[in-house]
């Protein structure tokens, strides 16, 4: 069934586009010939039933998986393979389904690691610490504290993250991603495992990030209410293939999408 393409929602120019990307593991085809784009400043949702290849898609954008076919164009530069380092340098940050925080460190330190790419003082100054390295450290601490204020996690900044409840861990992880000052923020099921209140908090954070900092957001989410409320455009995957692409309203009424979620064989 031919996927309808969405009307021009001119939020901005295309920030990232994937073209004809395919990825397999051994015999399993995770993603087949998928193409879509993400425009600057928008909130793009990637949805689909379980096993649709959504996380794999994010991993490809991030540079964690290398697709066998296809290309990724980010900020005008086209690559067939994106390395994690290139992605990070280019301004792509992400959170993970299973919260990939550094368990041995405090919340503050975790978020500070997000500033790594922006800290440049070399080994010699780091050894001394007083002087330029300290100045740099304090400067970045300021920025990190802004993020901590934004996410309202002041009380837990010195707590080792392994001890935090799941919802707070997700917030810290979001903080770490924000610390990278990304142009594109990839969120993998940011609301998973949260109750209604936590979801509302997290939704507000996502909206604020998008409004306030102008960050483009791509998120994977299962909660349809959240998807409908938050996103500007939606892309739907099923069994590794793109089956719909458009505004939430368009996608909602798409028969193919409804079938996919209800498990109708096609």
């Amino acid at each position, binding site marked *: 069934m031919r996927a309808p393409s969405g009307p021009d929602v001119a939020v901005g120019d295309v920030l990232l586009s994937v073209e004809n990307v395919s990825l397999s593991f051994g015999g399993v085809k995770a993603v087949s010939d998928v193409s879509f784009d993400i425009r600057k400043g928008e909130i793009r949702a990637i949805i689909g039933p379980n096993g649709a290849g959504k996380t794999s898609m994010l991993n490809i954008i991030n540079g964690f998986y290398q697709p066998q076919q296809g290309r990724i164009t980010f900020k005008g530069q086209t690559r067939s393979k994106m390395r994690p380092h290139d*992605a990070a340098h280019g301004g792509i940050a992400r959170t993970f389904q299973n919260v*990939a925080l550094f*368990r041995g*460190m405090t919340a503050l330190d975790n978020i500070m690691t997000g500033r*790594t*790419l922006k800290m440049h003082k070399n*080994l010699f100054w780091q050894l*001394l610490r007083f002087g330029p*390295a300290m100045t740099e450290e*304090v400067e970045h601490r300021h920025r990190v504290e802004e993020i901590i204020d934004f996410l309202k996690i002041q009380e837990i900044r010195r707590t080792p993250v392994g001890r935090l409840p799941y919802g707070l861990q997700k917030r810290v992880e979001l903080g770490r991603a924000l610390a990278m000052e990304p142009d594109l923020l990839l969120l993998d099921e940011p609301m998973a495992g949260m109750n209604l209140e936590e979801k509302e908090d997290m939704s507000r954070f996502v909206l604020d990030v998008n409004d306030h900092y102008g960050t483009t957001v791509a998120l994977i989410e299962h909660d349809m209410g959240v998807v409908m409320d938050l996103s500007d455009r939606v892309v739907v995957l099923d069994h590794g293939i793109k089956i719909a692409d458009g505004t939430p309203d368009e996608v909602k009424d798409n028969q193919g999408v409804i079938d996919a979620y209800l498990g109708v064989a096609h």
Partner: protein
Amino acid sequence: MFYREAGQYKTSYQADQALFPIRQDQIGIVLILAVAFILVPLMASTFVIDSVLIPVLIYSLAAIGLNLLTGYTGLLSLGTGGFMGVGAFACYKLATFFPGINVIVLIICSGFLAAAAGIVFGMPSLRIKGFYLAVATLASQFFLSWCFIRIPWLYNYNVSASIEVPTRTLFDIPITGPNATPVTRYLIVLTIVAVMTWLASNLIRGRIGRTWMAVRDMDIAAELIGIKLYPTKLLAFAVSSFYCGVAGAMLVFLWLGNAESESFSINQSFLILFMVIIGGLGSLLGSFFGAALIFGLPILLRMIRAALDLSMTSATLEHINFITLGILIIFFLIAEPAGLARLWQIGKQKLRVWPFPY
């Protein structure tokens, strides 16, 4: 009650990130340094200084080196002894070639040579992880041990394959060789260890320490943040080997006075690893605790033997030492994997709320 920090507010990030932010800690460290630098030389016996304090300080430095690599960066290494040996033999050769240069400078230089060796033997860490990396470090240990025996140039072709330390001075006071007094050597060792510990703590609290810990905790996530894994790991190997090399050089030049290949064998590597495990992986303070415990254990056993008036040969005591070490390792791994450092923290916590239980 004694350790209450309530009421101590920091008004700048700089103050918040200081090494000893709590007033009690600040007083404590000043006291400790005063005791170490002033009281001990005046009051402690030569035996205590020469047979306990100097070696414990030196081993603590080696333990810090290993801790940086294994505790902070998560790269298990069984090659510590080898790198200490590189430092020792490098210092010996440098002292032979440059008799006029101050020996402390030479010790630092041998640290750099050990760091270079560390980088070379750390190169496999690009592709190899975990147990496999530990086995790769065994390769470096056995190879270096072999070099220390089979390359006669290293020990100046001495017939007994051992090295003897020449006399070197600082401001005309002999600090190495048979004429150097224990107090002199102790003060030099103490200064070097104190300075290098401070440098290590600076590294740990800053960007580099965080990248190391990130690589340890979840290297995939670290990569996605933009941390380059390979340079980070190599830097850990380099810095760690630097510390071990300096410790090795000090071991020979400022304590033993001589050395042979056996001083830097795999047994040494294990000993230092045990110090790090028992003291606490990922804790600089723990390195000192661990060194003190492991080094003090044979002395303690000897005292017990004397106190209980048991007749036991030294060999038997040595075997009991081994057994006790093994039991301690397993005990700590079960009861407190974060080692003595953690117990120390728990102790401080109790002090915080004393006399209340919690």
